């Protein structure tokens, strides 16, 4: 060995200033650029799919709107575009639903799990940058990246689904579609990423952490549609036989003389017998309520009006962001605390 010597170590400051955050930027980029590139490819492919099929749907819709006379048989044929494109809509919905989960599993979960699985955390956590700052310097930029990418995609998804809603497809508040559009789409992705990061830190192995992320994410994603979202704001009650257009009907029931009689057919479907009894030649459902009211029943409907779409979007996005912040904070706390 030759006499290769180190230059003298400069005098240590009395107080060490923390190292600047920008030093972590290259580290995070270099170590996660493949995951980010994968994300761009997958979301890019999805965007191309939405764009190409979306253009076709828009054309069909425009032809439908422009068709005169509107009630002619020919226009009726064109008007069936909805039925024609429902399979496309379902496919797009499934792909859009999967994307946040996959980002959580493939971008979020490996961040810490790979370090712990391969032992490189013993390198990373003993460098001068400091381990919790290192973890924060990785998680925050990556979280912003996945949220920004899916935020951009949600603009396209808004554009893609617009003709369906314009064509009386259903309420925008419907569980299957509500979280694929607007601000909540990015918020769900953020939550998936945070779940992945925490799962990686807790499980310490990449593949099990990815599996746990998918399971936890889908478990969480089912909650709002099934139980939570309808309670974001108190539902509106009406005794009218019709609810406003695009409203999300939560439940329906009948009372007689101020007392509960039976639940609406929409919810349980078990009381057809009662309706059959009172209205034996039961006409289409919009007049069923009228028929029953002639027998002294009052129809009650609880619904969320479509005007609450954006309030609900912000409510859901807020709690998801808060949850994500909590999960990331827990992850960093564990990084700080974890015994090697």
């Amino acid at each position, binding site marked *: *060995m*030759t*006499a*290769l*010597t*180190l*230059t003298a*170590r*400069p005098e*240590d400051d009395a107080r*060490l200033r*923390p*190292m600047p955050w920008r*030093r*972590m930027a*290259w*580290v995070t980029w*270099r*170590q996660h650029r493949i995951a980010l590139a994968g994300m761009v490819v997958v979301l890019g492919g999805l965007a191309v799919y939405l764009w190409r099929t979306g253009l076709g749907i828009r054309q069909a819709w425009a032809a439908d709107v422009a068709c005169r006379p509107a009630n002619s048989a020919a226009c009726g044929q064109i008007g069936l575009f909805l039925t024609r494109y429902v399979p496309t809509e379902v496919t797009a919905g499934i792909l859009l639903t999967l994307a946040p989960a996959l980002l959580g599993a493939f971008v979020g979960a490996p961040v810490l799990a790979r370090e712990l699985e*391969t*032992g*490189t*955390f*013993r*390198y*990373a*956590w*003993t*460098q*001068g*940058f*400091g381990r919790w700052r*290192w973890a924060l310097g990785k998680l925050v930029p990556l979280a912003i990246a996945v949220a920004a990418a899916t935020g951009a995609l949600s603009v396209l998804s808004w554009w893609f689904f617009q003709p369906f809603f314009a064509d009386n497809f259903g309420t925008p508040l419907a569980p299957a579609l509500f979280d694929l559009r607007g601000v909540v789409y990015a918020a769900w992705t953020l939550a998936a990423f945070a779940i992945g990061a925490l799962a990686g830190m807790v499980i310490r192995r990449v593949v099990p952490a990815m599996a746990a992320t998918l399971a936890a994410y889908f478990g969480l994603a089912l909650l709002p549609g099934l139980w939570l979202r309808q309670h974001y704001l108190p539902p509106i009650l009406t005794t009218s036989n019709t609810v406003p257009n695009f409203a999300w009907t939560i439940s329906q029931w009948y009372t007689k003389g101020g007392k509960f009689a039976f639940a609406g057919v929409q919810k349980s479907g078990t009381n057809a017998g009662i309706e059959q009894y009172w209205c034996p030649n039961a006409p289409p459902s919009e007049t069923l309520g009228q028929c029953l009211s002639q027998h002294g029943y009052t129809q009650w409907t609880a619904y969320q009006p479509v005007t609450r779409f954006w309030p609900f979007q912000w409510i859901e996005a807020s709690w998801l962001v808060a949850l994500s912040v909590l999960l990331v904070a827990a992850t960093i706390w564990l990084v700080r*605390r974890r*015994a*090697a």
Partner: protein
Amino acid sequence: MNIIETSVLGKRYGTTWALRECTLTIPARHVAALVGPNGAGKTTLLNLAVGLAEPSAGSVTVLGGHPAGSPAALDGIAFVAQDTPLYKNLSVAEMLHLTRNLNRLFDRDYAKARLAELGIPLKRQAGRLSGGQQAQLALTLALARRPRLLVLDEPVAMLDPIARHDFMATVLTAAADDGVSVVLSSHALAELERVADYLILMSRGRVQVVGEVDDLLASHRVLTGPAAEAGNYTERPVVHVRRAEAQAHLMVRATADDPVPPGWESHPVGLEELALAYLRESGAAALPGPSRARHARPSEVTR
């Protein structure tokens, strides 16, 4: 200044104490060897010192009083973990850049010159280097941080003899020329004779022997004499008795000036011999300070 100082330090994993009641000081500007069998607690002690693990009991400070894992400690200590973990998919040049970005100080010229000298190509992926080259790369990254303390956990365990020699030569150069304090763990006793000037001997989670190698060698002798009389020697504490046919070899805590019983011969001890004797007698201890010196009655080992 003490480069590492622990006080009744303990670390428990579940219900098992990997390290307990560890009180020791390692002075600066030494090459300190941490010796002991597998499971003795060496890695645990090093992990506590570099801040990777949190103590379950007691405390550990480094670099003259900084808590382990504090910013000042991280800044001044370079750690090369067992099996030298590197990012296998990064190139050597990228590992340099990574380490540079993660540390306040990084002597890139030194690192490049050393890698050139070792014939390690900058463009090669770290995962495709040989085991010896990976160890040298990890050591180069550590030294280029200009640490005050270099901590090495079983650095040469996986290396062939030539790579071992080159690795230790680099460590010794850094220690001698640049005043870097070194703490390394090893169970390769033969290596240490050449390298270490401070010894910490551990077994079963406890520290058995701590001290300057020169002091330890000067305060131990091997007495050789008739096996039948081995039990009669009581002048000085006996660490270990080894019987070979008619003769017995007593490792005793004595200096060259201590009297030798008639019919017995006194020899100096080597570091490996001394370490082995203590490792075979897990009850024996040679710790600084009279209050902590414990002398269990040695068992007799017959060869």
